[in-house]
């Protein structure tokens, strides 16, 4: 059978037609697959980038809050600030740390990431230390406050 005559039969025509559809589909799929793949990869990369950026922001924020707590505590120990201000400022710092922790907890992806989980734990420990310092400043217990500030330094160096 000549190829040309086979082409002319109706069934072959149908086959040829479906074959060309498949071929053109394959062609289109090949054409589309690359951009889709690239787009998906870009999305995943940007999601990872966003995640990295978000974690870095949380990290910087916690570092800033730990540094603030240290500065507030040291100023009180040096007699530069009143107990009233120190307690108020520590309370505010505590609120901000808790906000950071809540923000971390609100994105499960961040907590699945080991760095996010570690940040969440650091935030929790920082909150506890802040609550303790606030209590000790109220009791004018300078020695304990000094120890707590040392703990915060430990938290900062651990990270």
């Amino acid at each position, binding site marked *: 059978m000549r190829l040309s005559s086979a082409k002319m039969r109706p069934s072959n025509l149908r086959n040829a037609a479906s074959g060309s559809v498949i071929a053109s589909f394959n062609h289109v799929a090949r054409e589309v697959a690359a951009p889709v793949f690239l787009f998906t990869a870009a999305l995943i990369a940007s999601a990872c980038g966003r995640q990295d950026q978000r974690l870095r922001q949380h990290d910087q*924020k916690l570092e800033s809050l730990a540094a603030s707590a240290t*500065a507030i505590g040291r*100023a009180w120990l040096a007699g*530069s*600030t009143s107990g009233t201000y120190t307690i108020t*400022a520590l309370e505010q710092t505590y609120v901000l740390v808790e906000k950071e922790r809540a923000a971390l907890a609100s994105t499960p992806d961040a907590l699945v990431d080991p760095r996010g989980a570690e940040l969440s734990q650091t935030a929790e420990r920082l909150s506890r230390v802040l609550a303790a310092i606030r209590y000790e400043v109220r009791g004018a217990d300078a020695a304990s406050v000094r120890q707590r500030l040392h703990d915060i330094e430990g938290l900062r160096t651990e990270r």
Partner: protein
Amino acid sequence: MSAIVDLILGVVTSIGGFVEAGSISTAAQAGSEFGFQLLWAIAAATIMLAMLVEMSGRLAAVSRRSLAAAVRERFGVHFQIVPLTAEMLIDVLLLAAEIGGAAIAIKLLTGVAFQWWVIPIGLVIWLVLWLCGFAVIEYGIGLLGLVTLAFVVSAWQTQPNTRDLGASLIPSLPGHDPARYAFLAVSILGATISPYLLNFYASGAVEEKLTEGELWVNRTTAYIGMCFGGVVSMGVLVTSAMVLGPLRIVVDSYDQAALMLVPVFDRWAVPLFALALGIGCFGAAVELTLNAGYLFAQFFGWSWGANKPRRDAARFTFAFTIVLVAALVVSLTGFDPLRLTLISVALTVVIMPVVVLPFLVLMNDDNYVKAHTSGAIGNACLAALTIAGAVMAVVVIPLEILGG
């Protein structure tokens, strides 16, 4: 002699009245996060503000009309609804932020939660407006505001590198977080060039009966006063950069910002910071409330004036009372005043073109400013500000999401 006294008082009170919640918060954040790198934004915004304030004073002195009244007359009521609504909305938010800032200042001294101070502060604002004339409001609060010079003293004492300071007056790209850098730059512009200041200044000039012969007083007060005021704002940024930056403290609350004065003022640091913040915010709150009354009264054609007996300007009094109550309600929600300030200054940028564009037209209309129309430089600056304002208005919301 009287003109000289007015000039000195004007300059001194411009310095004292320059710093408020917006400028303290944006400058403190900029300094703690980017060192001196955003000084150029304060310098540029201050020059623009001085120019705008001089123009609004000139318009008022020559036409005997405030900015809002002139816009209504020149462009019609239908046009003015847009800027009026936008400005009123921003005024309420800014007023709530300033009241919150003043309340935080008292909290720093007493330890009592800021929400408890919101209504007492609102009451004092209302009483000041009810009992005092324009001169007492302007000069009294401006003179008290000189306490903000503590930031300049502190910046001087921390001995920043003058070469670095000079270099930062030229815009440069940040080494990190470009979106945040851009957001802070736009916020500094928004916090400094508050549109309410233009109508407030023009209305004040009408109240004080500034004449064409005193235009030199207006010009000198605007340029010298505002430029020295800008130096106070720069003092906040430099102190924050020198003290909080090395400690890696990023300012997220006024409590943290108060620490910036500790190395220089020691046990006076927190009281001085609280006084500077409190007086700055209180002064701005009084001006915003008064300006809300001006805007409504000038739009509807009511009798207005802080110097008039209240019974002769009853609707004007009622208008500023309503706006004050609205702002108090916003403050009482307990929304963080610092965040409210940053949102307000970002929105201020959004409305800037709507306020500046009609101003550009008015300053070239000799029916209003006679022979004192703006020159080529003034027009170019105002046009540039309108275009820059339009661009910033488009980018500020995405920047707020990315870097705010």
